[in-house]
């Protein structure tokens, strides 16, 4: 697997990361090295095998749909980088 400039730009976009030219070149090299190593998984035939997403069979943890944690609005807003009144403040999200 060879990571190209186009692919690095695309991965930056997917990851919401802005990369300097230097970072792009470094990531191109080390992601290529790492993926080449990962490609050795192809030595194993996994045709038809199940995908193990979780260590054990987990069942959902159902509960009644009632509020149990109270109103913690002000506590949550304490960590906001920017706020206005009872709300998080961000740039306009519609053009």
């Amino acid at each position, binding site marked *: 697997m060879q990571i190209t400039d186009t*692919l690095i730009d*695309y*991965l*930056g976009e*997917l*990851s*919401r*990361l*802005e*990369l300097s030219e230097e*970072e792009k070149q470094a*990531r191109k090299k*080390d*992601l290529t*090295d*790492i*993926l080449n*190593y*990962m490609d*050795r*998984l*192809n*030595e*194993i035939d*996994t045709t038809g*095998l*199940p*995908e*193990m*997403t*979780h*260590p*054990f069979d*987990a*069942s*959902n*943890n159902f*509960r009644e749909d009632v509020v149990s944690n109270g109103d*913690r609005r002000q*506590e*949550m807003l*304490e*960590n*906001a*980088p*920017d706020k206005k009144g009872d709300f*998080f403040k*961000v*740039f*306009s*999200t519609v053009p």
Partner: protein
Amino acid sequence: MNVNQTNDIRGLTALELGRLIKERKISSLEAARIYIDAIKREDGEIGAYISVFEEAALAQAEAAQKLVDSGVGGPLAGVPAAVKDAICVKGERTTAGSKILEDFRPPYDAHIIEKMKEAGAVIIGKANLDEFAMGGSTETSYFGVTRNPWDLERVPGGSSGGSAAAVAAGLAPYAIGSDTGGSIRQPCAFCNLTGIKPTYGSVSRYGLMAYASSLDQIGPVGKDVRDCAAVLSMISGRDKRDSTSVIEHGFDFSWAWGGAGGSAGSAGAGNGSSWGGAGGAGAGNGSAWAAGGMDGAGGSAGAAGTGTADGGRPLDGLRIALPTNYFAMGLAEDVKDAVLKAAKAMSGMGAQVDEIEIPLIEYAVPAYYIIACAEASSNLSRYDGVKYGFRSKEAGDILEMFYKSRSEGFGAEVKRRIMLGSFVLSSGYFDAYYKKALQVRGLIKGSFDEALQQHDFILSPVSPTPAYRIGQQISDPLAMYLADIYTVSLNLSGLPGIALPCGFDREGMPIGMQLIGKPFSEGGLIRAGLEWQAATDYHKKRPEPRKGRGQAE
């Protein structure tokens, strides 16, 4: 207290200190002050802590003393503790070692912090870690590197390197770590400590900053097995806020330290007859060493060091698998020798040690990094500069705010893993990498299940080398990943493992081994660990006093 006593306190295990507090030989407040003063004096050269909570710790110490005075509170009531800074403590800065959370103060306690506070623990500070627990050397933290107390030029391991360094340097009696791919066991091996990576589902992850949710597990870092047993008993158990936490009442390993009614060696609840595992796989294999199961009763008979009544040997009936192929790959000669010597010693203690092969280990690292990075890229998408954490000042619109906040807030290793995760999950590559890794994960789990059908535990090294020099590996990410070869399979499979000191290399650096068990066989692992530490004294060795330590002021 005089200075000599002060330093004696720091040599004690957490349970020993807890006992002194109960016997009123020292108050909880005095203990907290001794540790906080020691951190102020000595942590400059170690860098084990990101934050020290002097005021909150002293208040908790007073509250803990009241618990002790009224006869309640666990065996660790009033004993100070360090907590890895990836675990939320209400109102106190919790950073995950990242600039992006530099000023984050969680509005809630993690489940394990609630349990620790109930038990009278005194949290004195937050331990350094690789940024978002992504690393094996504690060199990627935004807050600087942590140094190994055994040799300040070397890494303490990681990602729970601050937790391990704090305990090894006598700057905390015990610590809490988290293990996604070896992050408790490997720093314990590097710092001559005991650590447990519990079975996935033993400890609630509520309040642990998520790295890879299907792999992450919180666990203890301690001076010996007893301390780890006490800490795991305190923090394990079901929490409805984490649907993957499954053991209803938590473990009760009080037999390990003669707690619970004070009768040392009392059998655990349920079956006190066997070593190996429960929770399914182990049942009915006829072994004499089993434990617990998902009801959380970590039953196991007999305390360590007591031998058996009929003059038998301490590990009689224990069947250990020694995977010979683990020792045929590039590992340091001294590590190989120490672990094989330990296998021989355990055989002398009565264990049946069988040489076997556990296939597929060479595929564990690639499968692990694909899965861990995929989960990380998803988990870390929450850091966007909106609700908490760092927001870039350079942005002019909402998209730029996301990009710039993340780019300025995350360090290089975290960015690398997010990009790798985004790649393996992206359309066109998903099947070839992510799906493939999940299939291989199933095969790896299968190979461990098979080995554990015929054996109670698997014995392996923790890391291919002892602690290496700071800066030696950091520029080669692939080499860093490959060093996780012995640890990541347990996380992929959900199995428990205990790291135990088993020797020193020719330069005097500690070497660790791990015992791996069936799901929820922590009771048996602890019992075997107790027997090992009753027969050896590696775990009692401490680093040479550093300049300024142990001297009157």
